[in-house]
């Protein structure tokens, strides 16, 4: 990939990243952090690619360790975020409120 394309993607993604979270109430800080945390678990994709490229046992061992860690990060991250958010959601529609 050529450098300009990569820089373009990078710069645009920075601005999108700034923009999407710039107005968020403190109530959602924790779930948002947790969700973003899960998203960087896609390093799993990179870990699988290097496992495919591995030539030696050392490389394979390290990539498999990376796959395990990345899976924990990604799947665990999304599951725990869902658990946090589950507590917000049903009450708002089901609860009759305290008035």
């Amino acid at each position, binding site marked *: 990939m050529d450098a300009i394309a*990569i820089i373009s*993607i*990078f710069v645009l*993604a*920075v*601005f*999108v*990243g*700034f923009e*999407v*979270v*710039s107005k*968020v109430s*403190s*109530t959602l*800080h*924790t*779930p*948002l*952090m947790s*969700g*973003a*945390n*899960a*998203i*960087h678990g*896609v*390093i*799993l994709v*990179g870990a*699988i*690619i*290097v*496992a*495919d*490229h*591995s030539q030696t046992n050392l490389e394979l061992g*390290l*990539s*498999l*360790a*990376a*796959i395990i*860690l*990345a*899976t*924990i990060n*990604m*799947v665990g991250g*999304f*599951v*725990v*975020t*869902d658990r*946090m*958010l589950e*507590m*917000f959601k049903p009450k708002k529609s089901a*609860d009759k*409120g305290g008035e």
Partner: protein
Amino acid sequence: MNSTLYSLIGLGAGVAFILALKGLSHPKTARRGNLIGAFGATVATLSVFLYVTPTHGQEVGHSLPLNNFWWIIGAILIGLVIGVPAARKVEMTQMPQLVALFNGVGGGAAALVAIVEYLNLGAEATTAEVIFTVFTVVVGCVSFSGSIITFMKLQELMTTRPVVFPGGRFVIAGTLVAVLGVSVWVVTALGTTPLLVLAVLSLLFGVLFVLPVGGADVPIVISLLNAFTGLTVAASGYVLSSTLLIIAGTLVGASGTILTRLMAEAMGRSLFGTLFGAFTAKPQEASGTAEERPVRSGSADDVAILLNYARRVVIVPGFGLAVAQAQHTVRELADLMISKGIDVAYGIHPVAGRMPGHMNVLLAEANVPYDQLAEMDEVNPTFGQTDVAIVIGANDVVNPAAQTTPGCPIYGMPILEVNHAANIIFLKRSMRPGFAGIENELLYDPKTMLLFGDAKASLTKVVSALKAL
């Protein structure tokens, strides 16, 4: 699958992550946002199995399936077996440290990917690729070891106070210089040994970087390390020519940086002060010498009587409430007071609990109606008309020292101004200071009454005493 389709799927996953972050920023769409993110990540992971990324310097990859296919599947299964139960079973009170841990392993994964890629790069590697690889190793290792330390602090496996030792700042600065020096060595000498040295030094730096951070600032550091991990993922994306990793990593890096700043603002902390506390912090004794001073402690009946004749009561829940699992009992008390015509609100400090928003999650779990939860800016002006403020297992977030004592570790942090209420009730286990380790003058105030004991047991007693009145 051809490379165009593969790239398009990657782009789709990138869009899913943008929608996920956008969704997560609003209460109504948050859960859906998270699911969209999970969907994007799953699709992206599946797509790697259908397209072989060419090794360095090659035009096309080998034919399917992937090399080491079953090893890869096995490793993913192990990850699932560890990650899913951990995420499902964790108590909501311990969630912040789990997030820290997940972030740490993500950083570790990125560092490992970079190390393997480095071993693979060989002679054709461009300088830019080597630099990005070195960046990933350094930052990934810092994120890994730093997150482990934040985990240990939150889990209270080690002291929550800043760990500062004589000459500490020189050790940290020295380690940083060494990391940078060795990085240059790796880039120029291209060897396995320099890389190993670099990884070890970076791990050490991560530990030293987080040790001097005080308990209350730990969430900010987790958020920052989260952003760091994002950037390492983006850098790996460059080396592995994966647009998806570049987009996802950059998004997390950028949004994580903003989030870190928002959190620091909510806590009234300067980001700079938090991060470079290591360089400025002096070893410090717990402020407020532990001389015996008289406090006014009362019984559950005293508290019930006070509440019975109040018109407005504000409940200030803190982490102690969550530890005692007293969310349900406090709701019972609130419902009882409302049935007696008392105006009840919960005053939620932005960082009540251990992380911003943590308390909202805990109270939502106990079915506390959302409209009774008042944010700090809303509730502070009303304390003047409040008859009783009940502080349950909170300390630092109501400590007036944050407004009156320049130089104390929480100075400048916005607080819930319960000191303006006519009466203050503290439910505490002991006189032990809060997470930040600072004495609270309010406990000795004449209008304060203390009710010692486990928050849940005390609240249950207050509820039955109030029912009897």
